[in-house]
């Protein structure tokens, strides 16, 4: 016990300096990170602010700890040498993490999406929930969380569906061959004009695409503000069906013609009366 008191008496100044450094320095670094997040929130993108604040906190904390160790008399040269050897070993072991980290930096620099954007990758579709150093997290429309490593976003293509304020909704529509093409296009134009969610400008795209297997094929593609997706899709589909019914425009289903072997000869048909006995085999 006496030894402990003697040790504390001997190193009293060093201990106090170390406690002051850690006790004041680390909270100050955290405060700097907080001020960066608050101050730059409106000036930079969310991921840039996050990266900057975390960078300041990690680097600042490391410097404070190193200063405390130096004050305590630890030889930093030896420590850093050992850390270098350990760093090589750790580096080999954490190649994937480093790759994700660097990919994350490139993504932040490029800024192809932000928190809240809707992303479509080869396999996933959802709203960007968070952007972290190693990965991004997508929240799907069924409320599941998907973690996508940054490296795969750098390597593969993805679509940011909500990057621009307006979008075009491409709706393929088929009508029966007997219908008048110009009438169909006129009706579609009227449906778009009557729908308040369809943008008047840019004008809706209506294209007669060609002669399909079972229908005359059209592309009906009105523009809309991205927030109105669900409202416009529902109201537009209902309106198209309603107007086609009113105008007597038939939406066909796939047709298949059966031949009995010789195209010129029709199916043999035998007429029976309604009250006739059912054929053998029916019960």
């Amino acid at each position, binding site marked *: 016990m006496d030894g402990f008191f003697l040790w504390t008496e001997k190193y009293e100044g060093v201990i106090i300096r170390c406690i002051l450094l850690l006790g004041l320095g680390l909270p100050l670094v955290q405060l700097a990170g907080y001020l960066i997040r608050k101050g730059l929130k409106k000036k930079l993108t969310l991921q840039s602010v996050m990266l900057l604040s975390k960078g300041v906190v990690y680097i600042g904390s490391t410097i404070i700890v190193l200063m405390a160790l130096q004050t305590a008399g630890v030889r930093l040269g030896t420590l850093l040498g050992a850390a270098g050897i350990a760093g090589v070993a750790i580096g080999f072991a954490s190649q994937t993490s480093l790759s994700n980290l660097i990919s994350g930096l490139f993504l932040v620099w490029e800024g192809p999406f932000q928190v809240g954007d809707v992303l479509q990758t080869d396999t996933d579709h959802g709203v960007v929930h968070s952007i972290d150093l190693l990965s991004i997290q997508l929240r799907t429309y069924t409320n599941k969380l998907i973690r996508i490593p940054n490296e795969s976003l750098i390597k593969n293509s993805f679509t940011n569906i909500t990057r621009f304020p307006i979008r075009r909704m491409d709706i393929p529509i088929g009508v029966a061959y007997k219908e008048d093409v110009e009438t169909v296009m006129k009706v579609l134009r009227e449906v778009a004009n009557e729908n*308040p*969610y369809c*943008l008047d400008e840019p004008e809706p795209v209506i294209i007669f695409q060609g002669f399909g297997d079972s229908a005359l094929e059209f592309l009906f593609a009105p523009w809309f503000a991205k927030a109105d997706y669900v409202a416009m899709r529902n109201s537009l589909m209902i309106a198209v069906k309603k107007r086609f019914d009113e105008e007597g425009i038939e939406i066909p289903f796939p047709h298949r013609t059966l031949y009995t072997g010789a195209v010129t000869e029709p199916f043999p048909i035998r007429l029976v009366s309604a009250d006739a006995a059912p054929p053998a085999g029916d019960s």
Partner: protein
Amino acid sequence: MNYQELWKPIKIERDDTLSIQLGPLNLAIHRGDMEWHIASTYSQNEQELFSVRKIDEMPDHDWTRWVINEPIDEVVLHPKMPDRPLIVRPEMPVCLLPNQSVQFYIGVPIWLSISLGSHFRDIAEIPAIKLSNSWFGSPTEGELCYAMRTTAKLQLSDLQGHPHRAVVPFEIRNTSNEKLNFERLCLHTNQLRVYQGEERMWTNQGRVTYRGEEKWSRIVYARGIPPYDGAEKLIGKARGGADRGTLLKTFDNWKHLVDI
């Protein structure tokens, strides 16, 4: 009842419903016990342009409910201009020759702002006509607007009096040496106030000066009252002042729009 009476406070007894027909809009306001209900429907038929009647029953509408812990017995309505800019498209393209100016009169549908008593102001806003959306700018950057077709009358005598529209007097000056062809123009309605004239509602005067394809057009909205129809009484305030940012954006978009 004249539609101008609509801008005065209207008393409603408990459990009564006020039904207001204003153009295609049917607005129903019901007073309950410490709560108010508001509903709006739209009809295709504009035959009955204006009517106000009190009815005993609550119609089967999609109501919104406002709970207020005060015994308020009156509702106050104000006309306002649309809450977004308007892309106004004349029924046919207009060509203005060099050094000419023209004054258009454009009937813009009003928004009804509803206040309960004097404390609860502007609790809801209902458009007299549901306008379609439109876009002002490029597909990557711009502003969400409303679209409106207009006959853009040139003569005051041609104007019809609609209780659900306010007339915007809008002058276009072509001070350049080239023809100005345009199919549509943008009205930044947040700078327009609504005045009650003897027959119609009016807004302050707007003026755009076209100075050539390579130069920005200057758009100015007058601060004074419109010199028409004795329209001196302010009945609807502007939504926002003429802030400089809006004006700069308007110049840009105006150039884009007339550059057809």
